[in-house]
């Protein structure tokens, strides 16, 4: 069978709708979907200094690849990539290599910030000290640094590689953990309200499934060897992801339906949870929901527990940057 989009090429992907597309038509379909998402949700203005959060994985490389194309067509949209080196041995070092390589080849400014330099400890070291869920502490520090550094770089928005699967997982996780107020911050434009303390985060791949992103990355040479964070299998997200994929197999379209329902309720959620004013952390002056931000709370715990648990490593304590 040939590509259903009228050409005689062999199809390489079947969409959820049943449509089968060749490489060229799938690339066109995918990019058009991303540009439509950008326009539908007002993600990017005519003039921007855009940051792209780059991990070196397929999602962030795909979003950077497409936004770089957009920037070439619209020179008033400038692109900078930001990568965070959490310090996860055997994982992040590999993906950062891919990120550097891509940015070098495409003449994109890449700014790398590490936990070790910014906080005094790498994630691997933090996890030896604190008995916490790796993804929780890692996420807090990553979001903290991305926002802080985006402001320092005077970026107008920060694009991330979150796709439809990521969003579906977050919605369900929040539902199952009775954290519906966190769902109010989701959506293609992240957060409850615009505030100078936050650089607006946007998700151009919001309506693209993980499978579509992977196929696009494969076709465009952005897909590297599979490399999974060693902390992921322990996460609640991994269980929710597997459950959703199992449902999608049995009932195709489940993920799209979940996102579409969510988009209908999102304005109500944002209205409901918009009352809480964004505070400023008393320690670091970064935005926070509480008097002390989560990053400073974790750093304080590290500061207290290092000397108790690791008296011989107390010198680490001196390196903690609070």
């Amino acid at each position: 069978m040939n590509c259903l989009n009228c050409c005689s090429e062999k199809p390489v992907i079947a969409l959820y709708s049943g449509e089968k597309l060749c490489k060229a038509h799938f690339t066109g379909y995918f990019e058009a979907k991303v540009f439509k998402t950008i326009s539908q949700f007002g993600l990017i203005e005519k003039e921007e200094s855009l940051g792209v959060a780059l991990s070196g994985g397929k999602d962030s490389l795909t979003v950077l690849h497409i936004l770089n194309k957009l920037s070439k067509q619209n020179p008033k949209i400038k692109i900078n990539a930001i990568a965070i080196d959490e310090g996860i041995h055997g994982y992040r070092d590999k993906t950062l290599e891919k990120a550097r390589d891509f940015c070098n080849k495409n003449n994109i400014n890449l700014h790398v910030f590490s936990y070790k330099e910014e906080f005094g400890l790498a994630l691997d070291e933090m996890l030896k000290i604190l008995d916490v869920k790796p993804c929780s502490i890692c996420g807090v520090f990553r979001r903290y640094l991305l926002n802080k550094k985006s402001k320092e770089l005077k970026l107008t928005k920060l694009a991330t590689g979150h796709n439809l699967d990521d969003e579906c997982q977050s919605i369900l996780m929040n539902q199952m953990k009775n954290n519906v107020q966190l769902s109010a911050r989701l959506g293609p434009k992240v957060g409850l309200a615009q505030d100078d303390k936050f650089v607006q985060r946007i998700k151009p791949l919001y309506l693209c499934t993980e499978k579509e992103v992977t196929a696009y990355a494969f076709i465009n040479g952005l897909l590297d060897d599979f490399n999974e964070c060693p902390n992921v299998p322990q996460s609640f997200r991994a269980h929710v992801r597997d459950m959703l994929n199992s449902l999608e197999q049995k009932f195709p379209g489940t993920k799209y339906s979940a996102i579409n329902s969510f988009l209908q309720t999102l304005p109500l959620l944002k209205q409901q949870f918009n009352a809480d004013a964004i505070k400023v952390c008393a320690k670091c002056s970064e935005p926070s929901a509480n008097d002390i931000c989560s990053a400073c709370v974790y750093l304080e715990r590290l500061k207290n527990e290092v000397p108790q648990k690791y008296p011989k490593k107390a010198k680490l304590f001196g390196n903690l940057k609070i």
Partner: protein
Amino acid sequence: MGKIKVSVFIDRESRNAKLELANDSIVSDLLKELKINPVTVIVSRGNELILEDETLNDKDEIRILSVISGG
């Protein structure tokens, strides 16, 4: 009914496998045999992606690539 032999590389497990399948087997038969949910992978032969209804040939070299984000 004849059989075909295919070599498979599963990237998420960094594992190679050799499988014997019935003639005229298609990609979804292979995924079923390996107990892999087709939603979670894309499949390539050579440097080209192939669909789940693509017929496999004897001595095919297939790569099964995970779509799951690494972290």
